[in-house]
């Protein structure tokens, strides 16, 4: 029976090919536009480290000036002062803690024929690697002792390893950077979490850095810091004065496996703020925050306004396309009134007719869905070209999204077909037969 209905649907579509084409195009365009924007939103709001995102917390302490809060909504600043961050890090009260900031430096390859080049890097403590489950191709990160002793050690990414050492295991070799020799402890495997949750202040969708060095080396002033620095209190000149200042530029992540750990750590933070309050700092002692990965991404509005606005627009667009399809299907099915009358007179039940017409709408939906999928792929390519490099990992369909597109198309088409089908089944055979 099913194949017979499909054949009937095919014949009916062929007879009114113009209308059918219009419906398929309308559904296709609606699905294509929606899937393009849904994909970008879905990937922007993805969980970059799903298995432990609830155990990783971003530490915020409100050391900002007494008169005005840092954020308009009163939330604590996004970064810490050097003195507060190093105090919390040295206390080692969490299972793991990563103190960090951006850095950049010039690498001078051993091969003098190769020109020196600039790299973007991260200055972080040893826990960064196990905390964020960084995959390694060779070797590993450094240990806590290396942080304390300010050892010149470095982790490089696979691309840089390719460039400097031809892709061979380079652990134990040295890299000349910013005028000093750094010992390679590990080569990072491909790792590119999106959003790049561990530092979204310099672009939530930027690529992972090329080199990683101990944060404690920042005080040696050999390489330059990068990232945002915000100050509110005038300071004396000089680097030591800067480190002691109220300028915020350091980030701290902690790993707290259980709820109790979190509560304990939060009390520890608040106690520290109260203690500092006695020395005239921390005007707002109760404005400290401990947010896990997804809360932090949500708070920082990683999904851009443009992306959500576009999604709202495209869903409305899909609605217009569906209304269009309802109208056209209605017209089409009512146009077949006499044919329906004949079929009823020959013994087809309402149920049979209902299924027959739903299959016809479903086929149109499937065709529209496939067209929509192709259009979504084109749309995502267009987005990559128009928005530039940072979006390339956010404009890719995965299997879930493909299934979603086809499902959305069929559901939309069936929904659109429901009312027209019902109307078609209401046809009175006697009236139709009489008018012949």
């Amino acid at each position: 029976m099913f194949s017979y209905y499909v054949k009937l649907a095919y014949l009916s579509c062929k007879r009114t090919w113009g209308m059918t084409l219009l419906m398929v195009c309308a559904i296709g365009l609606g699905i294509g536009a929606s899937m393009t924007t849904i994909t970008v939103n879905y990937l922007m709001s993805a969980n970059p480290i799903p298995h432990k995102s609830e155990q990783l917390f971003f530490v915020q302490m409100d050391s900002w000036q007494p008169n005005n809060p840092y954020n308009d909504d009163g939330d604590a600043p996004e970064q810490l002062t050097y003195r507060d961050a190093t105090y919390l890090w040295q206390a080692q009260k969490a299972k793991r803690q990563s103190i960090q900031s951006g850095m950049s430096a010039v690498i001078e390859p051993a091969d003098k024929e190769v020109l020196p080049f600039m790299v973007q890097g991260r200055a972080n403590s040893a826990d960064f690697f196990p905390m964020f489950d960084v995959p390694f191709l060779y070797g590993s990160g450094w240990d806590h002792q290396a942080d304390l002793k300010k050892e010149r050690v470095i982790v490089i990414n696979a691309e840089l390893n390719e460039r400097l050492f031809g892709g061979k295991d380079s652990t134990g070799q040295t890299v000349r950077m910013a005028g000093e020799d750094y010992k390679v402890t590990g080569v990072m495997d491909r790792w590119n979490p999106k959003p790049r949750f561990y530092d979204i202040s310099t672009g939530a969708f930027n690529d992972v850095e090329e080199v990683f060095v101990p944060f404690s080396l920042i005080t040696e002033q050999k390489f330059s810091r990068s990232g945002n620095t915000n100050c509110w209190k005038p300071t004396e000149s000089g680097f030591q004065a800067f480190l002691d200042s109220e300028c915020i530029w350091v980030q701290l992540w902690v790993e707290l496996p259980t709820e109790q750990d979190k509560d304990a750590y939060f009390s520890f933070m608040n106690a520290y703020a109260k203690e500092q309050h006695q020395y005239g700092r921390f005007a707002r002692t109760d404005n400290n925050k401990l947010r896990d990965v997804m809360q932090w991404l949500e708070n920082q509005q990683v999904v851009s306004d443009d992306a959500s606005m576009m999604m709202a627009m495209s869903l409305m667009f899909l609605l217009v396309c569906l209304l269009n399809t309802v109208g056209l299907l209605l017209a089409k099915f009512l146009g077949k009134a006499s044919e329906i009358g004949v079929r009823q007179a020959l013994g087809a039940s309402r149920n049979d007719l209902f299924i027959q017409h739903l299959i016809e709408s479903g086929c149109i939906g499937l065709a529209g869905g496939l067209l929509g999928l192709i259009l979504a792929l084109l749309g995502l390519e267009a987005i990559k070209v128009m928005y530039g490099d940072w979006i390339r990992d956010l404009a890719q369909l995965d299997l879930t999204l493909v299934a979603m597109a086809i499902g959305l198309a069929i559901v939309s088409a069936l929904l659109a077909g429901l009312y027209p089908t019902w109307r078609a089944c209401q046809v009175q055979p006697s009236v139709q037969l009489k008018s012949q």
Partner: protein
Amino acid sequence: MLELLARLELGPIFRALMRNKIGALLIALQIALTLTIMVNAIFMMQERSQQMARASGLDETNTFYLSNTVFAQDYNLKTALQQDLQRIRQTPGVVDAIQLNAIPLSGGGWSMSLQTKAGDDIEGTGSAVYMVDEHGINALGLELIAGENFQSSDIGWREIGSTKWPAKTIITKALAEAMFEGDWKSALGKTVYIDNHQPMQITGIINTLQAPWNGWNGVERSMLVPQQLDGKGSRFFIRTEPGRRDELMPVIEKMLAESDRGRIIRNVTSMEQTRDESYQEHQATNTILLTVIIVLTLITGFGIVGLAMFSINRRTRQIGTRRALGASQWQVMRYFMLENLLISFAGVILGAAGAVGLNIWLVSTFSMSPLSPVLLVIGVVALLIVGQLAVSYPALVASKISPATATRGRA
């Protein structure tokens, strides 16, 4: 008036419509949603276009910049910098060159707060800071509208980590207006305070110079300070004679790179490219919005054509009868045009309410400003025209139906 309405046969059209409520309702809803989306999308495009049209104040077509990163350990930064600048300025085709701490529109820069009174608790006005020497105004291509440029004796070195500011500054008209209650002329010669306590005298006012951040609401507020950074990373900003930028970019890059092996020259970028990159998202969003508007209008238009064709097919015999009873071709055509106008009217009224509703939601959820009523009126008129255009072909087909159809049986 009543007579005219009667002659337009609105009554019969309306009653006929009521018999096919659903079909009419579907078209009206489509038109309503189309208007809702269209007006808001155009409005979003307008906002972005206006932002993109703002002048940066620079001679954008003839300027470029490059980064100079020193890695050699024993290096006399100050001497090298002066030599580099001299070399660039002497290159034929170069108008002027400076060392600049931040590039307008690039997204990265330096900002400070300025106060009209000294003190810790005084509200300040945020401003972008550009550190230049006496060639700054010429190299950037700025227009000095009051006061005077810096002298070479004003220029000092700013060591790394220093928090000392020089005694003079040149500010933009917009910054002067923000600080002195809209009266920029009065700002000249006044003293303002930076970093809460350090006094600076305003010795000049420039017309326009944008900050590095195009999304900042104070993007027109900038200040020039007579200081030269002393550090291992610096940027040179270069202005060429008209039309010679592209030819000189590689020449200067090569000259600097070869003159000294202890540093890297990178990111040689024209100001035009910086502007394109700065507004890349805006540009892309506008292209998408425009596509959405066009496709949406087409779909709605074709939907109207499809439904009208269908309704005419169903009424072939009735139309034939009307023609046989003496209705002219024009009257038949007018019937369908008017029918569409009635439906469209209901649609645009609903759509106008929807557009305002969506706008209210957009304003409250995202940082957007309220819709202008003019745009709404334009949208309404545009959609009514689209409806009439779409229905004109089916109406024409209807008007061609021969009166003889009435006498024939159903096909």
